[in-house]
């Protein structure tokens, strides 16, 4: 089976939210209310249990003047966010039931028939993607359209994207495509275009890669996402020392008491 990935190119995104609609419709995800956020035209806010694709509306971040704008106007960037399907996935490591697995396509998949809603994946995701649905009780996130991939189809969002801002394919091919696209953008003067896949962090790269303009932090993409397993050694060492202190302390206390009682 090929290892697949998303390449989301924000320079091509027109903010139509077709990916959000397609994802909800294909996967039967419930609506999340109809609330105005006041944050540009983004009334979704973030990915979560009921939002597996989320179009960000980034105002005033990239260099002004590009993309046909007047020089004094800021560029308005859109970027469709999704579960990163980490190479070294915090949620997968943390899941105590084995509900979260890696599929043959390299994606990270929550098996809904096994999840018991312990919520530990939620605090183990460095990208804040997976979330417990308070009504249902289980944790949900993007499935990478495992069902569609199984039969050789593209994920619903990539299938629907009208500008091919969301590209889907074999991961190495997409990496090459991203490199080519980046040098093309740089050649056209968009020197602030950057590639984001977190491969230099403990996440060891993502299966959802992004091309964004400007600092990725304006897109809520963390500069150094950390997989919680990185803290494990320190944590268990402290646990062992704590247990040692408890055992030795109890022994000392009671032996000392015996001795002073005996005399």
């Amino acid at each position, binding site marked *: 089976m090929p290892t697949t990935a998303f390449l989301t190119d924000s320079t091509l995104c027109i903010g139509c939210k077709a990916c959000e609609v397609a994802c909800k419709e294909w996967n039967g995800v419930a609506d999340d209310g109809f609330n105005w*956020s*006041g944050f*540009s035209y*983004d009334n979704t806010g*973030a990915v*979560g249990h009921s939002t597996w694709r989320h179009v960000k509306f*980034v*105002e*005033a*971040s990239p260099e002004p003047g590009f993309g046909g704008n007047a020089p004094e106007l800021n560029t308005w960037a859109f970027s469709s966010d999704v579960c990163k399907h980490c190479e070294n996935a*915090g949620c997968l*490591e*943390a*899941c*105590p039931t*084995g509900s979260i697995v890696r599929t043959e396509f390299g994606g990270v998949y929550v098996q809904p028939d*096994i*999840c*018991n809603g*312990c919520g*530990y994946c*939620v*605090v183990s*995701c*460095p*990208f*804040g993607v*997976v*979330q417990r649905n308070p009504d*249902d*009780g289980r944790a949900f996130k993007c499935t990478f359209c495992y069902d569609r991939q199984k039969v050789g189809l593209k994920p619903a969002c990539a299938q629907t994207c009208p500008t091919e801002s969301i590209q889907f394919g074999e991961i190495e091919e997409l990496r090459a495509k991203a490199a080519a696209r980046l040098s093309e953008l740089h050649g056209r003067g968009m020197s602030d275009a950057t590639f984001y896949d977190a491969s230099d962090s403990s996440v060891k790269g993502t299966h959802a890669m992004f091309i964004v303009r*400007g*600092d990725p*932090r*304006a*897109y*809520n993409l*963390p500069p150094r996402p*950390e997989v919680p*397993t990185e*803290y494990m050694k320190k*944590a*268990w060492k*402290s*646990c062992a020392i*704590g*247990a040692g*202190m*408890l*055992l030795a*302390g*109890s*022994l*000392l*206390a*009671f032996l*000392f*008491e*015996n001795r*002073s009682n005996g005399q």
Partner: protein
Amino acid sequence: MSKAFEFPEPDRERRLHEIRREAEQKGSVKSPGARPQGAPFPIASAETGYYGIPLLKQPPWTWEIPLYFFVGGAAGAAAVVGAIADVTGADRKLVRHARWIAAAGSVISPALLVSDLGRPARFLNMLRVFKPQSPMSVGVWTLVGFSSGAAATVFADFMQQRYGPSLPLRIVENAGQAASLAFGLPFSNYTGVLIGATTIPTWNQNVGELPMHFGMSGLSAAVGLLELMGHRKSRALQMLGLGAAMFEVWEGWRIESRPQQALDPLKHGLSGSLIRTGGMLSGPLPVALRLLSLVSNSRELRKWAATSAIAGSLLTRIAWIYAGHVSARDWRLPLEIKG
């Protein structure tokens, strides 16, 4: 009757009148218009993140979890204290009381853990795998081992008290005690690993101390409970209580003396007040009361030290969980933005 339904609204009508007058007099309207609710709006940038919308998700756990941390910590430590008291030949009553605390915890802990699950009926799914890389999985298996051991010990002890000594029951009692000792050691403090090894900054920045901190907090509570059950003459318990409270003083100093931004929820706001109150009740206050009780030989002061330690232990767990929520909401930390 809500004010929003009053029509016409005098303030807004007056504002319309003002705009009309300004237009008449000056030919155009220059004064800032009515600002939409919530304005000025944040922007998305390298300095402000994505409109300040938090990147991380808050822990979905309910009130059961801090209580589980408290009960589990006290029960695990009580099992250890009870087992050591038993093998060193201490007062039988103290051993029995410690076992009862452990056994009570072995029933309450799983109940709390199960009721926190989004799908409590699927609790047993936790037992379909063992994953050493998942503190939740290791913890659940530790809980299973501990609960079985602690319950078996009390059961065998009770049956022997009732129907006289019996070798098979004696074996069950000792095996149960060995298991509750072996599993009680990690059970008393693994919850520090559980929250320390996460993406929540204020938790993972304390990952090296949290297990020790929670373990000593559990010991404080176990000792306090035993003292409230009447063991206020035991010098061993006094020493253990004093040692645990002194560790809590050190832990408080560790938190306060480090300037990292990620530790702010432990020092400021409601979460900071909770952490500090919990710390005072767990550390300096019991240390002072215990020292005074040593000097004055007062059992009344020990009772107060025990009460303070128990309250501090419970409040400490509530405060740490709450601080985690505050930390998750702080959008600056995962984006490495100072402020």
